[in-house]
């Protein structure tokens, strides 16, 4: 058994093998690997006795379930109107400069992906960004650099 297969099996044992465990299992894989590889989806399909196409079809519906590799840290900047008004473009520009990537891309060392997201639910404290599960409201370009540098140090 490969590492992924083993991980999926563990998750299936934890959550159960019913169809309604599909989301929690896929979410656990994304949490640990940052994306769903073909190998992972085949493993999930095998464990839950579903067709691989069905697993793929479900996963691709959801914005936060990427089926291609993402960086170890995923930065999501809210692009909805109120964050837009509060200056999210400056945050995007600053981080593109800092990480030397464009929106939607991943750094060559695989440490960061830079994405935009729809409303993150912090409109009164925009602009806001999410790094993995951590939220950073009321950011400025300087604060954004500071926060991302911390993740850079952590590796």
């Amino acid at each position, binding site marked *: 058994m490969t590492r992924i297969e083993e991980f999926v099996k563990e998750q299936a044992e934890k959550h159960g093998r019913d169809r309604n465990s599909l989301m929690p299992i896929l979410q656990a894989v994304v949490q640990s690997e940052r994306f769903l590889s073909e190998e992972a989806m085949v493993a999930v399909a095998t464990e839950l006795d579903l067709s691989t196409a069905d697993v793929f079809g479900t996963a691709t519906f959801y914005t936060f379930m990427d089926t291609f590799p993402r960086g170890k840290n995923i930065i999501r900047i809210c692009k909805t109107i*109120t964050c837009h*008004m509060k200056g999210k473009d400056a945050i995007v520009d600053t981080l593109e400069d800092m990480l030397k990537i464009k929106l939607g891309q991943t750094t060559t060392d695989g440490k960061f992906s830079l994405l935009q997201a729809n409303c993150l639910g912090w409109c009164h404290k925009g602009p806001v960004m999410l790094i993995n*599960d951590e939220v950073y409201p009321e950011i400025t370009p300087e604060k954004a650099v500071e926060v991302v540098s911390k993740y850079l140090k952590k590796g």
Partner: protein
Amino acid sequence: MEKKIKKVDLIFGKVDYLDILDKSLQRSRDEIILDVIDSGLRGRGGAGFPTGLKWKFAKNEEADQKYVICNADEGEPGTFKDREILTEAPEKVLAGMALCGYCIGATEGYIYLRMEYNFLLPQLHEQIDAFNKQMKERNFEFTIFIRSGSGAYVCGEETALMESMEGKRGEPRNKPPFPTSQGYLGKPTSVNNVETLVFALMIAKEGPTKFKEMGTFDSRGSKVFSVSGDTPTPGIYELELGMTLEQFVEEFGDGDTKAVQVGGASGFCVARKHFKETLIGFEGIPTGGSMMIFNSTRSMYNILHDYLEFMEEESCGQCTPCRVGCQQLLKGIEAVKKGNKQPSYLEELQKLSDTMRIASKCGLGQSVPNPFNSIINNFREEIIY
């Protein structure tokens, strides 16, 4: 009519939730449901269905299992109150779920939390474990679980939410059957917004009268508002219903308010000239809480473009009017702005948006005409030039 905006504190204040539950469990289910009906409480997630009736329908179903779902998907742009409620008063939400469970006869409850709020998970798990234990100690059979979304706005629609919980693509179902007869796993299910559940608990605590006395005939009680945009005081406020937009803007505007988007990207844009006669509530313009304020420096074209882009991205793509309609509306206003289409093309687009209202399968597609028509009707010049 000169009513001042009144702040209320039913949602966030601390209460002895176990005492409320203990006393409620002594009463008959019908009695509590009648109180909730009598209070006039309507769902706070947007659609505004009377909560007591929903509970009654679910209660009247015969089934070996029923479910309570707390809708914490909160994806509507400009809404952030459910997160605050789950942070500040989680025990009231859990108790509201248990109360609903008692009334309809469900032994399991699920919170569907949007993934963007995953940072709440550690503390919520702890609180849920403690709460489940307290229910067990009372010999009251009710267990709460938590499920996460994965970044899809449409999963806030109750049937899409249940599809997602069942491990499928979050595509809305046809209604009927309604969730109260065939919901999660085909069983009777009551889906309630976070805020709705807390109000129901408070009505069980204080009786229906106090709630009913607040607000207006169709919009009883108070409501938690999420205020953002061009305002010196952005934030979360629980206010008595029944105020006009003029009163609202007087309190929260920056003195230069040009328009307010009431109800988020799926809501309506109200221009300054209509503030006075527009009531915030079910007899005027309803809102799930989202109030985005725009001053005269803002381009209404950018705002409409932003909302359409949001809808176009979040449409599940299941039905043609919505999938293609969102794309065409977005492309259409871009073409008019660039001068590639005549201004009269906007009227054609408005016809398309009217078609979306009647032909789309779920509330997402059906409500795209709200921002589209209200912004175009009020700010046509800004869209063209």
